[in-house]
């Protein structure tokens, strides 16, 4: 793992840029080309639903990178990242609800359908501003970021760490789930937000809009990749790893562990919020089940499968696990939970460094042999 991560970490390393460019070409050029240029009956044609599916996975990959930043590098296993993802999704969902305008079932231009249904007379104050895309886009980052900052400040300052932090973050997402299930909260209760029509004036049912969202997600993933690389390659990245390995020792060197963790946690939450905001327009719905604790734990397994503390691992893991999920829930749905459960056990017992570690180990063995 370390030989590989170091090759990636080394600034200006040609291998990093080669890999980065290759992935960029694959997702940014090849997938759209195979979708748009090839006839539908061609064996290599990528159908529209597949583009949206990959777009979804790309969102998961961003989420996994966010999780990796705080868990893989900083050792803080948050079991509440699903909440930040969902909050980002709700923020953009609110904007899309507002842009439905009078085209809803009740034709009410001032209120979303579910509020009309609940006999609400006016828009709650916290919906104000979501008419504007710029405001919603800001909130996508500000709300998860602010929640993570306040929550993290309280928790890290009191030295709540390890499993305690995991349990508390789990309680946080659970409490949010219960809250969002309530109709009185004004976020659509059980059903959440759905029936979106368009985003920034682009019709969401159009293939071109879907392709645009896909391309945007790819670009954001690329930017996340570079950002995470910048942070982890900096001295702060090394302090984060030091916190992960020997937290109290870092304090005696004069670094504020609270500050380091808070930075990683907040940045990670903002990235998770962005991932959620890209996800919701592509799947067309956001509801409180996104807050369920099980979802948050699943993110951890993507990261673990791919390889914690590596740049590429989370992306690999998100694609591998979700690809398997899509395939298996279609082919043999009753087996999926067995597979997922076994994956949790297997990865923690036998594959602590994930796929990236496995690959690095294999390569090391091959070089060893050829050196003999």
């Amino acid at each position, binding site marked *: 793992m370390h030989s590989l991560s170091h090759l990636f970490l080394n600034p200006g390393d040609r291998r990093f840029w080669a890999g980065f460019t290759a992935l960029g070409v694959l997702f940014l050029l090849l997938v759209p080309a195979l979708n748009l240029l090839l006839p539908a009956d061609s064996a290599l044609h990528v159908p529209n639903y597949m583009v949206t599916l990959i777009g979804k996975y790309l969102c998961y990959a961003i989420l996994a990178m966010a999780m990796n930043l705080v868990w893989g590098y900083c050792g803080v296993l948050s079991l509440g990242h699903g909440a930040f993802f969902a909050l980002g999704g709700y923020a953009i969902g609110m904007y899309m609800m507002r842009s439905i305008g009078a085209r809803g079932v009740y034709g009410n231009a001032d209120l979303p359908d579910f509020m009309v249904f609940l006999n609400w007379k006016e828009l709650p104050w916290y919906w104000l501003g979501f008419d504007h895309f710029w405001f919603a886009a800001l909130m996508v980052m500000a709300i998860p970021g602010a929640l993570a900052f306040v929550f993290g400040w309280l928790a890290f300052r*009191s030295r709540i760490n390890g499993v305690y932090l995991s349990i508390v973050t789990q309680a946080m997402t659970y409490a949010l789930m219960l809250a969002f299930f309530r109709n009185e909260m004004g976020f659509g209760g059980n059903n959440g937000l759905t029936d979106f029509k368009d985003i920034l004036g682009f019709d969401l049912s159009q293939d071109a809009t879907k392709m645009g969202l896909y391309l945007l997600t790819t670009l954001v993933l690329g930017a996340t990749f570079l950002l995470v690389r910048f942070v982890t390659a900096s001295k702060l990245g090394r302090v984060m790893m030091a916190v992960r390995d020997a937290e109290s020792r870092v304090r005696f060197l004069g670094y504020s562990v609270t500050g380091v963790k808070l930075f990683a946690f907040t940045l990670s939450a903002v990235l998770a919020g962005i991932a959620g905001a890209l996800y919701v327009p592509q799947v067309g719905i956001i509801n409180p089940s996104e807050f369920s*604790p099980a979802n948050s734990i699943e993110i951890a397994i993507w990261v673990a499968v791919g390889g914690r503390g590596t740049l590429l691992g989370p992306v690999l893991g998100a694609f591998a696990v979700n690809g398997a999920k899509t395939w298996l829930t279609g082919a043999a749905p*009753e087996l999926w939970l067995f597979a997922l*459960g076994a994956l949790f056990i297997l990865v923690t*017992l036998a594959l602590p460094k994930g796929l990236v570690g496995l690959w690095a180990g294999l390569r090391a063995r091959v070089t060893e042999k050829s050196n003999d």
Partner: protein
Amino acid sequence: MRAFHLILALAALLLATPSARADDDFSTALRALNADSYADKIAAAEALAALGEGRAAPILDALADGRLYVTPDGAILIEQAGTYLEPLSQKIVTTDKAEAITVNNRLRGVARGAAGRLALFSPNAQARGAAVEAIMNSPSDEAADMVRAALAKESDATIKALMVTALASLDLSSDNAGHRLAAVTQLADSSDPSVRSQIQRLLETETDLQVRKVAEKTLGSIEFRVTLMGFVANLFQGLSLGSVLLLAAIGLAVTFGVMGVINMAHGEMIMLGAYTTFAVQQGFRAFLPADLIDLYLVAALPAAFLVTALVGMGLERGIIRFLYGRPLETMLATWGISLVLQQVVRQIFGASNMEVANPSWMTGGWDLAGGFTLTYNRVVIILFCLAVLGGLAALLRWSSFGLHMRAVTQNRPMASAMGIPTGRVDAMTFGLGSGIAGIAGVALSQIGNVSPNLGQGYIVDSFMVVVFGGVGSLWGTLVGAVSLGVVNKFLEPYAGAMLGKILVLVFIILFIQKRPRGLFALKGRSVES
């Protein structure tokens, strides 16, 4: 007003009761039901009811059900499963000429209400009691007079008391200030929240000064009693919830508190215990005489303990022991285990809820004042969870296994050097924690649904209890569970169930900022490092 006159007539009739005349009136009123317009039919139904005779009730019921027929010669018959009954003579009549009397919704409502009030004169005491309660829910002047009439004839003491209270609350809306004053005086001993709101309503419009004064005093004493009853009810429900939380958390206090292992599959151990209970119940039903069924719960306890303890020991030896010292990984692996266990149960028993019946000795409850019931199953669970906690504390304190367990927790290398088989102690400790979860499952099967998701509902709560109470302290787990249960139930009336739960979660999250090690934390070097 017309009805009022009728009732006065009725009262007179009741006092006089010359039976022949009454029969004549009754039969006339009965025939009047076969009127042309609905308005006339309604008047006739009311008139019939006003006669205050219990035998009118089945006729009005039949009318409401559309089972009242009329022959071409005007005789009224009740249809019952294809035969006709002559209501006056109670004889079966055979005819094919009868036609149903048509009813509309309004008539149906009147007939039903009238039949309900007439139940006041039913020979069955229970039916009379039910009628009084029904009348309380839709008070009117006629109803008050009717209850007064019924009260005069009532012989059963309980029903009589009920009628007195009912009459008093009906009299609150009487035009007669004397009646109202008597009523508010009468009601001073009540602890019924609906009486309280009636008096509040009275006070909004009452002009008579003396009535006001007494009513205010009565209101005060009722409010005190209602508050007290509410408090007792909340306390009991809180204790009940606390005992459930405690049962779910005790096993966790062992695995997390003693071993430091976060077992995310703990909830599934509870679930397995509940399914074992279900299986034992089915076994009893299939293979043992029916009169032994009440004992199935007794057999389910050891069975559930054994099953879950064995599963727990298997997991510890097979998976968890390889992850000691890696708590976060343990958490993820045990989460995986929980998914597998859920799916296994889903494959065997199906995804739907299983029915586990309370044994007869756990069914029912004590009725306390103010419509509040102490159900036996909840009481049994409170006692049971205290017994489990006490048993566990005794085991840890006095058995050699408990001693070994504490030794291994405090200093593993030293315990190992002294010849304690640490591996076996680990397995047995984990088995113990899981077994207790299984027992919790037996208890939870008695108050809720048994489904593969049963455990998921408890996992966050039980972790909160352990963290709040203080990891490694059974006393802390007890105090944590009970206080969270009680606080939750006291919040519910103000905040609603869900918001109450959210507030409790937020409170705990904030609380452990202040005391990261919980209420009853151990302080020492070993804990800090």
